[in-house]
């Protein structure tokens, strides 16, 4: 019992939780933005992979780290545009298109990686983002190590939550995004273009998702591996429902999942001798399913989610 408490009050644990949560924050914010506009983006898993590969490769080829982040976002935007064109003006099934984008983006990333590096056995490394040492703040007891020894991408993720909330609730663009996910006819009758808003939002949301992938290869690790995204995209889709499509709750959800994950690693080392390790690996997923069951029944779905809009059709 005291062992568990020791884990929970260690700064190290919370630092790990925030680190694990960072790609999820990008992912869930990206997914949430798309769904607020009425488009489910199941391309997320592939967009993570594409962001991870593109960002890493750009740096490996000599771009700066922030240049790599930009390239990752552009890769995400590209696949987002494909999904948006298929689902918005063409009105195809969002599920089918999303899965297709995931398969396409994942395979294309692997293909480019293999083509560029046909002979390497161990993945080449890059000089990844370093923890940002903020004099003064980083030396605070507890908070310092937990909060202020993260890489810049983690701070970008936290900033993005605030910016997304502001845009969604306080700007004309945010109102239009919310409205287009609820009743596209409301947007059209006020003289705005439903297609432009939906396509733009999906492209932007996909760019944000890709940053989650970029975090994996440019901050959490310093190389690209096959299968490294490992279902993080799907977790983000579930977290979106958990968050009831609100950026603040999305942050809480991602942190909660990060904490579960960090906790199971530590618990494994504490009591791992007599319980199989796989049980601990399962834990964060089981807990997210449980949390989802509790929260999702009250979830406030965007009414026009999954519903394509065709002009002039009643």
């Amino acid at each position: 019992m005291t062992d568990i408490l020791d884990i929970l009050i260690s700064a190290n644990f919370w630092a790990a939780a925030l680190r694990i949560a960072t790609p999820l924050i990008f992912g869930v914010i990206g997914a949430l933005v798309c769904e607020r506009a009425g488009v489910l983006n199941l391309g997320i898993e592939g967009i993570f992979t594409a962001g991870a590969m593109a960002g890493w490769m750009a740096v490996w080829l000599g771009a700066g780290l922030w240049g790599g982040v930009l390239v990752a976002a552009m890769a995400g935007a590209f696949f987002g545009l494909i999904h948006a064109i298929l689902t918005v003006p063409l009105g195809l099934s969002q599920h089918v298109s999303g899965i297709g984008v995931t398969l396409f983006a994942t395979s294309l990333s692997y293909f480019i990686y293999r083509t560029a590096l046909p002979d390497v056995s161990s993945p080449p490394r890059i000089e990844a983002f370093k923890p940002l040492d903020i004099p003064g703040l980083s030396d605070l007891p507890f908070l310092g190590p937990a909060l202020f020894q993260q890489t810049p991408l983690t701070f970008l993720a936290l900033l993005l939550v605030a910016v997304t909330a502001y845009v969604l609730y306080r700007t004309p663009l945010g109102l239009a995004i919310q409205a287009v996910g609820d009743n596209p006819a409301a947007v059209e009758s006020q003289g705005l273009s439903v297609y432009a808003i939906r396509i733009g939002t999906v492209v932007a949301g996909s760019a944000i998702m890709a940053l989650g992938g970029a975090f994996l290869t440019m901050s959490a690790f310093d190389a690209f591996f096959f299968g490294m995204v490992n279902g993080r995209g799907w977790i983000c889709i579930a977290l979106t429902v958990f968050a009831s499509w609100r950026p603040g709750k999305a942050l809480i959800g991602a942190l909660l999942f990060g904490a579960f994950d960090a906790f199971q690693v530590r618990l494994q080392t504490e009591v791992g001798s007599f319980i199989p390790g796989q049980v601990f690996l399962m834990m964060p997923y089981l807990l997210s399913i449980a949390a989802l069951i509790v929260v999702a029944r009250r979830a406030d779905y965007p009414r026009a989610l999954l519903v394509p809009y065709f002009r002039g059709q009643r």
Partner: protein
Amino acid sequence: MAGLAQDAGVVLRLDGITKRFGALTANGDVSLDLKRGEILALLGENGAGKTTLMNILFGHYVADEGRVMVSPDGTGLSELEPGSPHAALQAGIGMVHQHFTLAENLSALDNILLGTERLAALSSSRAPARRKLEELMARSGLTVSLDARISQLSVGEKQRVEILKALYRDARVLVLDEPTAVLTPQESDTLFATLKKLADDGLGIIFISHKLAEVLASSHRVAVLRGGRKVADLPTAECDRRKLAELMVGHAIVETMRSPGSPGAPLFVLNKASAGHGRDALRDVDLTLRSGEILGIAGVSGNGQTTLARVISGLEPLTHGSMTLEGKAIGQASARAMIDNGLARIPEDRHHDGIVGAMSVSENLAIESIRKPENQRLGLLRFSAMRERARNLIKAYDIRCQSEDSPARLLSGGNIQKIVLARTLETVPKVVLAAQPSRGLDVGATSDVHKRLLAARDRGAGVILISEDLDELMRLSDRIAVIHRGHLSEADPSDTLDRGSLGLRMAGHNAEDAA
């Protein structure tokens, strides 16, 4: 062009608008002028092209021929860019659609603000908008709570938000598509009072309607559309009910007149029947329907009519009492058993309970007799036979649809009702249950429904007519009973009743008080 005498005060002109959908001409060469401060009623039956015309005006559709001219600043008329709601809004045209175009997850204020600001703006300036709206609300009498989410508002409030959306953008022309379809009579009165006030302030208003009473009461001028063409355009003062109805339908309306029926033996009996619970429950109801009569059930909606209809349809079990058909007790009824027993059910919500929207017209026509040998052989459906019968019924009942294969949901309300009538009455039923059979239908379709019900009666069927429309009840029923809080009164011959006493009984006074 400006300054021509005939253009004085004209804020909107439709010039030779033609719009075709495939072979159908929805609008044929329609021209129309709207003056400042004028309330113009656009009258026509369902499918006459009213909504199409207004959707062209607002840029949802592009006309094949003709143009829309507007006078955005009150001076000369200039052509409006077709196919752009944005341009229409810029030119001062506001539209209140029949199905509201509001985002339910936003506040009233945000819905009004939507699209009025640059999308790239860094923040929404709600405070000045609120001031302008409060002033508008004070002046027009359209009050809504601006901070409430749309999902919390009543239908009447939502409509006020829609009108405020237009006024906030300084609309000079306001178009309302069937604005009273969803309102209570009191809300409708308030709406028209507001529209009068707005027109007095200089707004040009077009409202689409197929209700003669409100057109006569509330418009300055009437334009009548029939089959996509404008057949009349005249001051309301020169019109009366009969004239408008004839213009709208295209021939003289013969109000369906009932000849006295010849009731036979008791056919269907409810004895001390109770069912359901809550407000709409049925309590201790005695009802005797004889063959060859129409029994009207009058009452304010929500007094047990729905449960009564469900019981007769076999959808709801009785908790007490009994039900007999032709002397035989019906125990645990089911919808299928009731249909096999000879019940024709014309449900209240015809879109939801009357048809399966995604299925074709011919499938919908066969749906209640799917197990009969004419529709199936060895469990396989006989599609060609079903289609053939559907083609005959489409002709006999004048169902307007592209073909027997088109999905039923594409049909208008009147034609959907004709599908229900054709399906149920063609089987020569013993009992016809008609719940609100003409609600929401236009004059032509209503008179068609009435004729069919009277024909079924004359053939010897017993008809139970549940309606909120007293005129309809008085015109069709041989006897009328009143339902109030689940209790059904004694049925009296309709010749002995008048609207006043029925109204009192519907409000819960008993027969002695009312007499």
